[in-house]
C-alpha cells in the first residue's frame, strides 16, 4: 500500500501536533529533561543484584539456611525451589564509593569511581523468569515476541538526527536467547527496527559492494538505477513513494561511506582506547562496543543497544552453577569499558545529553542453586541510569532484607519505560501506533509509576 505525499505529510503533521500537546501538559518536567539519545547496556543472561548493587548482609548472617517462615511462598523460578533452597552469602564485598557513598560491589572497581553519576533503582521487578520472555518483557514491555522494542518506539517518536546512519543500532555477541525480535520493530514499520552493527569494515549488513565490483563500477550501476528510476518517475510524479525509493539509493550510497567511518577506531587516540580497555584480552571486545557506542551517538544515532553475553558463549547465565566464575569473568569484561564510556562521554560534554542505562532481564536468586550458583530471579533486581541530568549517587526503592521481593517503590518494566521515554521528552501516554484498531503504547495500559522527577531530583 503506498503512502501518498499528502497522507504522510498529514500524518506527520498530526504527530508533531500531538507531541506538542504532550509537551504542554508536561511542560515543567520536559524543561528539565535533557536526554537526546540513549545507550542501553543490556547484561544478557541475568546479573545477580545481591552481588552487585543491592547488598544484603542478612545473606551472610543466614548463609546456608533456608528462608525463614513463608518468605519463599509464591515464588517460582527456573530450577530451584524457594521453600527448600538455602541462602548464599555474596562472595564479594561492597564498597561505599564516591562522595555519595553509594554501595557497589568489588566486582566493579572501575565503576565504583563513577558512583556519584549512578542512580540505582533497586526495586525493579517482573514476572517472567525464563530468558526469552524476560528479555522480551524488558525490551518491549511484553513477554511475547512481536511487539516493538523500546528502541523502535524511541526512534519512531523522535526521528533521526543523522540520515546517513540508522537511528537505532544494536551490537550484540550474536546469539540472543530471545532471537533478534528483542530489537525488532514489531508492528511498527521496518524503518524503526534496530540495525545490527558488527565490528570490522562493514558494520551494516550488505553495506559493501559485491565482491569484484570496484567503487567506480558501483557508482556507475547506482547511476544507471537512478537514471532508470527518474525516467520512470517522470510520468508518475504524483507518487512520492517512488521518489522516496530513489532517495533511498542515495542514502544507501552515503551510508556506504559514512558507516565504515563511524566504526573506524583507528581514528581514536591510544589514550582513549586504553580508557575503554581496548587492547586488553578481557576488556577488548566490550570496550570496542562501548567506544563504538560513543562514536555513534556522537554522530546522531538516537538509540544504541549493547548486549554483553550470548546464548552460545560467555554469558551472565553461567551463574547457574558458577556464580563466582561467571560474575568475575563477565564483570571483568565490562567494568573498565563501562567506566571508560562514562568518563569519555563526560569529558566530551556528551553525558549531559546522553542517557546511559544498565540493566539485565532479571536478577539472580539470593538462594543457592547447587553449591555455588544462583538461579533466575525476576521479583526484585537492580537497574542503574546515568547522564542526561540525572542526579546520581542515589538509590531508589528497596528489596526485602533477603533481596527477594521489591518492597519499597516497586517499579515494573512499564514504569521504567515510561520514565525513559519521558527523559527523552516523550509522554508515554501519547506515543501511540494504531494496530488492530487499538492505539498501542509501549507501556500498554501501565506506566503509572514513572520516576523521572526522582531521577532529576526535580
Amino acid at each position, binding site marked *: 500500500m503506498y503512502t501518498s505525499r499528502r497522507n504522510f505529510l498529514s500524518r506527520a503533521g498530526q504527530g508533531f501536533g500531538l507531541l506538542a500537546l504532550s509537551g504542554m501538559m508536561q511542560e515543567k518536567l520536559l524543561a528539565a529533561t535533557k536526554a537526546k539519545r540513549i545507550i542501553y547496556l543490556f547484561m544478557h543472561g541475568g546479573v545477580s543484584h545481591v552481588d552487585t548493587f543491592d547488598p544484603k548482609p542478612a545473606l551472610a548472617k543466614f548463609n546456608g539456611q533456608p528462608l525463614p517462615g513463608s518468605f519463599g511462598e509464591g515464588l517460582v523460578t527456573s530450577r530451584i525451589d524457594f521453600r527448600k533452597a538455602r541462602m548464599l552469602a555474596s562472595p564479594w564485598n561492597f564498597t561505599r564509593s564516591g562522595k555519595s557513598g553509594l554501595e557497589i560491589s568489588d566486582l566493579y572497581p572501575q565503576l565504583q569511581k563513577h558512583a556519584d553519576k549512578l542512580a540505582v533503582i533497586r526495586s525493579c521487578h517482573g514476572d517472567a523468569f525464563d530468558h526469552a520472555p524476560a528479555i522480551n518483557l524488558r525490551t518491549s514491555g511484553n513477554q511475547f515476541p512481536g511487539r516493538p522494542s523500546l528502541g523502535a518506539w524511541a526512534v519512531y517518536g523522535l526521528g533521526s538526527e543523522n540520515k546517513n546512519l540508522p537511528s537505532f543500532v544494536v551490537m550484540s555477541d550474536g546469539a540472543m536467547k530471545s532471537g533478534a525480535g528483542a530489537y525488532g520493530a514489531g508492528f511498527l514499520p521496518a524503518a524503526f527496527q534496530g540495525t545490527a552493527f*558488527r565490528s570490522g569494515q562493514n558494520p551494516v549488513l550488505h553495506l559493501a559492494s559485491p565482491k569484484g565490483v570496484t567503487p567506480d563500477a558501483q557508482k556507475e550501476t547506482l547511476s544507471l538505477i537512478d537514471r532508470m528510476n527518474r525516467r520512470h518517475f517522470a510520468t508518475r510524479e504524483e507518487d*512520492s513513494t517512488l521518489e522516496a525509493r530513489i532517495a533511498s539509493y542515495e542514502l544507501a550510497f552515503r551510508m556506504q561511506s559514512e558507516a565504515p567511518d563511524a566504526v573506524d577506531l583507528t581514528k581514536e587516540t591510544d589514550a582513549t582506547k586504553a580508557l575503554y580497555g581496548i587492547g586488553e584480552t578481557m576488556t577488548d571486545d566490550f570496550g570496542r562496543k562501548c567506544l563504538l557506542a560513543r562514536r555513534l551517538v556522537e554522530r546522531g544515532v538516537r538509540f544504541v543497544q549493547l548486549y554483553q553475553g550470548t546464548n552460545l558463549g560467555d554469558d551472565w547465565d553461567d551463574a547457574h552453577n558458577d556464580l563466582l566464575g561467571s560474575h568475575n569473568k563477565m564483570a571483568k569484561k565490562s567494568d573498565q569499558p563501562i567506566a571508560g564510556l562514562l568518563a569519555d562521554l563526560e569529558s566530551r560534554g556528551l553525558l549531559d545529553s546522553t542517557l546511559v542505562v544498565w540493566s539485565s532481564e532479571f536478577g539472580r536468586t539470593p538462594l543457592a542453586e547447587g553449591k555455588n550458583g544462583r538461579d533466575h530471579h525476576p521479583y526484585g533486581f537492580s537497574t542503574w541510569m546515568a547522564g542526561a541530568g540525572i542526579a546520581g549517587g542515589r538509590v531508589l526503592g528497596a528489596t526485602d532484607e533477603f533481596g527477594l521481593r521489591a518492597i519499597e517503590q516497586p517499579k515494573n518494566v512499564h514504569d521504567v519505560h515510561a520514565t525513559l521515554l519521558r527523559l527523552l521528552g516523550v509522554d508515554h501516554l501519547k506515543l501511540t501506533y494504531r494496530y488492530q484498531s487499538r492505539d498501542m503504547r509501549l507501556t500498554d495500559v501501565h506506566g503509572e509509576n514513572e520516576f523521572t522527577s526522582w531521577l532529576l531530583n526535580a
Partner: protein
Amino acid sequence: MRLLAILLFAISLPGADLSGSAVALLSQKCLACHGSQVQLSGLRLDTREAILRGGKQGSAVTPGQPETSLLLRVVSGGDTIAMPPTGPLTSVEVTLLREWIAAGAPWPAATVASRKWWSFEKVRPTAVPATKDPWVRTPIDAFILEQLRAKGLAPAPEADRRTLIRRAMLDLHGLPPSATEVEAFTKDPAPNAYDRLIDRLLASPRYGEKWGKNWLDLVRYGDTAGFEQDPYQLYAWRYRDYVIESFNADKPYDRFVKEQIAGDEIYEEPAAQQGTGFFTVGPNRDMLFKVEDINRVETMTDFVDTTSGVFLGLTVACARCHDHKYDPISQRDYFKLQAIFAPIVKSRVFLTYSLARQYDLQENTRQWKLYDLTDDFARLKEPYVKRLRAERLAQLPREAQVAFDTEEDLRTPQQKAFFEMYTKQVAPKDDEVFALLTPAEKGRLEKIKSRLLSLYSTYGPGPFSPSVTDVGPLGPPVYIPGKGNDEIPPGFLSALGGGDIPPPPPGSATTLRRKALAEWIATPDHPLTARVAVNRVWQAHFGRGIVATTSDFGARSTPPTHPELLEWLAANFVEQKWSFKQLHRTMLLSSTYRQQTKPSGQAMIKDPENVWLSHFTRRRLEAEEVRDAVLLTAGTLNPKMYGKPVVPALAPEELYGMSQPLANAWVVTSDPTEHTRRSIYVISRRNFRMPLFEVFDRPEGVLSCSRRESSTTPTQSLSLLNSDFTQRQAAALALAAMKGDESTIAENIFLATLARKPDANEQTMAREFLLRQTKLLGTLEQAAVELARGLFNTNEFLYVD
C-alpha cells in the same frame, strides 16, 4: 531527500480519541461500583444518559462545564467526596476527563451498552445501482461509479494490456509475466482476451502459492516453535501444502473454515482433517515457561484471539481481562469461547492409515537397533580415545592436569578456566581415532557404518500432518480467573445471538464444541464470515479494504467506504458457493480494477489516498515477490511445488543473531537446485527471518498479520543491491544473455527483467553502460552482470502499476 526523511521518520500518531479514552477510563475506574451490576449512590456511569441523569447526588456531568460537574470535582479533590476509593486519578487522567466534559461529554459510536452495530446485523440484500454508463462492466463498477460521481470524481482510463497482465499476474501468482507472455497477451485479437487471461491465471497452480502465502500470514504460520530454543515444528509444512492445495482446488470457504476449526470432528477424510493444523502452526507457547499451566493459558488465549480475528474479524483480546470497552463482548463471552478450545490436545493426522502405522513401526525398530549400534561404536573407539586423551593431557601444564583430575564441583575458578580452555583440545576426534584402527577394526567400523546407513538412508518424513483433537467428550472446566467458581459453559458471543453449546451425545469421542463453532461461523447468514473474507480479498486487489481494518469489524473499525458494495460482495460470495476464484473473477473483470494508476488532477486534490478508487493504487512487491521475481527473471526459479521447507545457503554475516548454533538452526538443503524454489517453500523460522524478507516487511510470524507494512528504507536498497543473492542471480542472468553484441545483450537483459525491449534512449544508455563497465571491470560479462543487478533495483521492477 527531505521527503524521504519525513517518510521514514514521520510520527504517525493517530488522533487522540477523546470519547473512547474517557469512556475507557470510566469503565476501568468506576464501573465496579457504578456499572450495570452495582449502582452505589444510585449512580451509573456506563451510558451517557445515565451519567447526565446522575444519582442521589444529582447529575454527574454537565456537558461543556467541567468545573461544575460533580464527576470532575470528586476525582480532582474539589469536593468532600474523593473518588475513586482505590486511589486518586493521575493528573493526566483528570485532564482527560476535564477535556472530555468540556467537549460536551461525547460518547463513542458503540459500546457494550449499545448492541446495535452494523457488522453484527445480517447482510442486507442490496440492489445494484441502476446505470447505463458504458464504463460499468460489472456490479462492482456500478457501486464504485455511484460514489465517484457523488464525490465529483471520474474513473481513470483503462490501463494498457502490458500493465494489466503484469498487475493480474502479480496479484494472482505473485510473479511477473515474461516478455513472451506480455507479447502474446498484447497481440491477442480475441475480444475476451482479458477474461481468458484471468481464467488461465486462476487455473494455474501458481495461484495457490500466492494466495496460500496470504493465508499463512493470517494464521501466523512458521516452521519453528519460537522462543529461546526455537525448535522445528517438523510437519508444519504439511499444513502449508494443504493451504496451497485448498486455494488451487477452489475449496469453498465455508468448507475451508470448517476443516480448519473442526476437521477432526466433522470429516472422515484425512485431507480435510489436515486443516486443524491451523491450531498447531503458530508459536508453540509450550516453549514459553517451564510451568505448564501458564503455557496452557497462553495457548488458549492464542486460539481464541487468532480464531476470532481470522474468521470473524473481531479483536476479542481485550475481553480476556475485562469487558470489551468498545465492542459488545463481555469477559464471560471471552471465556465461553475459550471453553470451546479448552479440550484441545495436539495430534497427528495419518494421511494414509496403513502407511502411517508402518512408518511408526519401522521407526520403533530403527531406534531399538540404534541402541546397540552406538554401543558397538563406542566400544570400538574406547581404547584409542583413552590413549589419545591421556597423551594429550600429559602435554598440558601441570595446573591444567590437576584441574582435569579434580571433581567438577571441587574445581577452583582458576581450574575451571583451565578445564574449559583445554576440554576440546584433549578430546580426540573420530577421524583421529579411525586413523589408528587395525585392519580388522577398520572392517568392524565399515560394518557399523553400513548398518547405520541401511537404517537411515531411506529415512524420510512420515505420512503425518499436524492436527488437533479433543482430550475426550468432557472438557476441563473453565473459570474466569479471580471471579470465583462459576464454571463457564462453551458458547458463542452473545452480541451475535449467543447460545451455549450442548454436551455431545453419548459415545462421542470429542466434545463437538469446535464442530458447533465451525458450523456457526460457516452458516451462510453469519453476519461477519463472508463480509470479512471478501474484504480481505478486496484489500489484496485494491490496496485497501472496504473496511480498512480487515481483522477488526468492531466498533473501533474504520467505517466501510462502500457499505452497499460490501453487502453485495458478501451476499454474492455466499451465492457463488463461497468460491474464491469466482470472487477474484468478479473483482478482476471490473472496470474498476482495470484502471490506470495515474490519478486525475481532481483525484489528487479530492482523494489523495484513493479511497474512492478513481484510479488503480500502485503497490510495491512484497518480500517474497521480490525474491521470486528476481529468481524467475534470472531464469533460475525452480517451480517444484510442496514438501519439506528449503534452507538456502546464506553468508555467515547474514545469519547473525540466530539464537541457536548454525549447524543446528540453519541446516542448508544439500541439493542446490532447491535453493531457488519459490519463497513460500523457504523455511520460516520464528527467531530469524532471511535478511531480504526482513527488510521488505515480511511479518515475524508471531501474531496474525492481516495487512503488511510497505516501508521504504535504505537497508532494503543495500540488501537488493549488494547481497550475494542479487549478485548470484544477476550473474546467472548475464550468462544466459551473453549472445551477440552490447546492444543485443542489453536487449536480452531488459526483456528478461522488465519484459520489454529498451526504447531508443535506454538502448543507448545501456550500451554505453556496458562499454564503461567493461572498461572498469575487465569483461563484457561482468558488465552484463552489473546491468542485470541494476535493473533488479529499478522501480519499474519493484512496483506494480
